[in-house]
């Protein structure tokens, strides 16, 4: 048993937590952009492409995050793609965020008042103008609660990438636990870090939802 002061534990875990958060901007950007594209392809029922994407999206939504992580990490080397733990994390988190967000945007599109499309068309807007000026701003607003929910999910899912060796807060906490033999302390600090970031986001998501329903 080894003594590591609370301050030391805090700073080591805090630094490790930064790698959990480092994924976020990239994953979110990919998820939103590809998610929107897939949502529009499926909304317009573009033949073949639409069905293919539907199947892919549902396979990702139907699979546990961990098995996708394992599959990407252990199978890709056999086709000549060697990914490190961090890259595996980026790839899998982006794939899942894209799949879930595409469904969020698609339901937003389906729920959208058809009159908005018609009014934009009657004013002579091109497809691009119609989408960027009228449809997307409204979709983004109505789906904001789910987008924030997806951010929380992505942050929490990062912890699972530790299972293929990525160094982040949960893996670091296990190492500390093995030194101090005090799991409660290590995992409590980890929980506090996650709560500090995720809880406010959950509250924001609920507030936004309340605002949309009014």
């Amino acid at each position, binding site marked *: 048993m080894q003594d590591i002061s609370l301050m030391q534990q805090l700073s080591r875990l805090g630094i490790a937590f930064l790698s959990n958060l480092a994924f976020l901007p990239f994953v979110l950007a990919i998820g939103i952009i590809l998610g929107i594209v897939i949502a529009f392809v499926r909304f317009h029922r573009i033949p073949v492409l639409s069905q293919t994407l*539907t199947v892919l*999206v*549902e*396979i990702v*939504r*139907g*699979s*546990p*995050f*961990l*098995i996708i992580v*394992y*599959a990407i990490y*252990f*199978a890709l080397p*056999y086709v000549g793609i060697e990914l490190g733990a961090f890259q595996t994390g980026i790839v899998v988190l982006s794939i899942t965020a894209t799949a*879930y967000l595409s*469904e*969020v945007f698609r*339901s937003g599109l*389906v729920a959208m008042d058809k009159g908005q499309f018609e009014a934009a068309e009657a004013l002579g807007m091109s497809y691009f103008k119609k989408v960027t000026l009228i449809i997307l701003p409204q979709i983004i607003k109505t789906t904001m609660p*789910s987008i924030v*929910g*997806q951010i*929380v*999910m992505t942050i*929490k*899912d*990062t*912890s*699972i990438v*530790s*299972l293929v060796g990525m160094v982040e807060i*949960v893996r670091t*906490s*296990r190492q500390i*636990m093995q030194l101090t033999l*005090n*799991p*409660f302390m290590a*995992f409590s600090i*980890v*929980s506090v870090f*996650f*709560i500090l970031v*995720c*809880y406010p986001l*959950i509250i924001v998501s609920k507030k936004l939802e309340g605002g949309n329903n009014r």
Partner: protein
Amino acid sequence: MLDMRLISQYLPEFFEALFETLKVAALSGVFALIIGTVVGIISTMKSKLAIIPVGIYTGFIRSTPLLVQLYFVHYGLPITGIMLTSFQSAIIAFSLNSGAYISEIVRGGLASMDKGQSEASRALGLSWFQTMRLIILPQVFKKILPPLISQFSYLIKDTSLAAVLVIPELTYTARKIAARTYMPFESFGVPMLMYFGIYLILALLSRFISGKKEPGRSARRWFGFGKVV
């Protein structure tokens, strides 16, 4: 392409693993339903004494990763003298996790109930407990069945984390067979198909139930859960 001989050779093992996954999910699901119902009812009470602990519980579960919760139970509880097998740890962690989400579904269902139902029951002389058991909860559960089914679908996916505790369920078995055979595509492909099959069945079931309630509404989806996150 895929080695069919290998797949058929390991198929019995995969099915055993599928059974283990379903066992973990079903047990956790039952406990989660009990926890969720009790906590959900408590959360509709006015007293701060009831609401604050419930808020801490659901807030903690929703804000932290399931993996951390699993570690808490598996490595943390033994220190307090409670010795647990991996299987018991997994069931406790999954039940507590899913229970928190179910409590929010139950709370939503209770909140949407017409006040007249409980007023009429009380006027008939039913006790609070009778009112809940005979009048309110049966109606609430009928209403929240679709979200409960999607929650169960999430639970099945979450049980893959039991692999961390070396429980021989689908994800663990997939990894084990992949390491043994050096055939990752077959080893992960079969379990993923199994997960997808369960997901599909539950999604169709959920759609069938909600479709019966509002005909035509969900007719456009041909599979998958409509509501996400």
